[in-house]
């Protein structure tokens, strides 16, 4: 496993992360988050020193396996209820701007 050689982020890294996370950032935000996120990441560096050879990752604190239910039709939220909070709707659908031009 390769550990990143530096914990520090650049403004371009932050813009890339923000794009992945679909959050628009103002220039002042970029500067602030670059400093703050780099500072936080520095504190994570100590984890690299923990010996985890042969240790399984924990995704979930309890040993639960997949939980299945019978595939039976049951009442669920009505279309009207599901759309009740929609910012815009049309003909029973959520309405958005075109995804593809």
């Amino acid at each position, binding site marked *: *496993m*390769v*550990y*990143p050689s530096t914990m520090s*982020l650049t403004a371009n*890294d*932050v813009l890339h*992360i*923000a794009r*992945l*996370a*679909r*959050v*628009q*950032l*103002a220039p002042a*935000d970029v500067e*602030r*988050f670059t400093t*703050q*996120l780099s*500072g*936080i*990441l520095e*504190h*994570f560096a*100590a*984890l*690299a020193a*923990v010996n*985890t050879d042969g*240790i*399984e*990752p*924990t*995704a*979930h*604190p*309890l040993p*639960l396996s*997949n*939980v299945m*239910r019978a595939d039976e039709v049951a009442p669920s*939220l009505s279309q009207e*209820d*599901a759309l*009740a*909070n*929609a*910012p*815009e709707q049309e003909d029973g659908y*959520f309405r*958005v*701007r*075109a*995804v593809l*031009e």
Partner: protein
Amino acid sequence: MMAEAWRLTAHEAHERLRARELSSVELTRSVLERIEAVEPKVNAYITRTPELALEQAREADARFASGTATPLTGIPVAVKDLIVTKGVRTTAGSRILENFIPPYDSHVYEQLRRAGAVMVGKANMDEFAMGSSTEHSAYGVSHNPWNLDLVPGGSSGGSAAAVAAGEALVSLGSDTGGSIRQPASLTGMVGFDPTYGRVSRFGIVAFGSSLDQVGPIGRDVEDVATMLDCISGHDPRDSTSNPEPLPDLRAYLGQDVRGMKIGVPREYFIAGMEPGVKDRIDEALKLFEELGCEVDTSLSLPSTEHALAVYYIIAPSEASANLARYDGVKYGFSDRTGASMWENMEQTRAGGFGNEVKRRIMLGTYALSAGYYDAYYLKAQKVRTVINREFQAAFEKYDVIVTPTSPTVAFPIGAKVDDPFAMYLNDVYTLPASVAGLPGLSLPCGLSEGLPVGLQIIGNFFDEGRILRAAYAFESALGWSNRLPDLA
């Protein structure tokens, strides 16, 4: 009708309701009047529900008349605003949900309604439960009833402040890394984060799904036991809800603690712990010895120091996935001024989320992104295993583990809000049990400079009963329960 009924614990109020010395409508009015009087100073609520409360109180009085009352029937409760309530706005402390009216009820609210409890309002919180002070709420900070210039802790700060200020008798909070225990500690209340899986998260706004758990805050140990009894149990709508049957938790109250083995991990006594906190914890350990417990301060949990990094990688990673649902399409705040759907989505999230939420989403996105997944997320999950194993080894030797809940008493509003990492350090004593999914309770153990200090009792998986047994014995011996600050 008794004066100041809002001062009663839930179990005291229940006795009077049952004896018909007090009606739920009278009790609820007393709490609603108290809210009117102090809420401008405390700001414990995002949304108040007085009409609904009085309607539920009338139903509760009918249940007492018909003999179908439970210990929570007619009791005024505050509900953290990430617990969805059908027809009652649920914001999670975020602008992005400012107009969200849930079309269904959460499991825990259903349980409260089944028991006949009365909801007086939706409690303030750090946005999406990310914070330790309520300063990250989009609806203003809550003030600590012990000193209004101080924070009440967080993220369930509104739930804790409401109970401490007499604006509810008990409340529900949620705990991901300390969000019930730390505000309980800072407001002199009792807060209980049960075992991961004990309480269904159906209808809880998700933050860190391998960590989130709902639990109660109250003025004494008996009240949190009663609340946990009510909300626990298997729910098929949450696949992590545990089918383990719940014992009668109140049966553990008053049980003898002689011979109980208490481990005190030395890694918790670190620089940064205030001397006044250390003094109260030392006295608390002496009190446990006087009660006949075997207190061993030689316990070592060497990976404790890594819990903070593990948590602040795993929780933001899970949050970055969970919060992807806030896209301005299906519900909530929506900025539609952009030229395309993607632009609208990015603007919606820019305007709808506060800075701490953006920081965590980006931190999580980074930790999960190509090239960094192994170094951050996977590594954190492996260290999580190491932390779990250390706890499990300790529980072979000890019944419970006792630590301070927070390294400090309540701190001034504004003191840490611009320094994210300083804020994260507030959770240093509550994060390890969260990472391990273990139950932890915080209860008051005295004052330092006039402010409450909290003691944390951590138990093994599904061993809430043993925690309650130790907590109740301690509370009785200390003679501290239902102590409310003199809020002017």
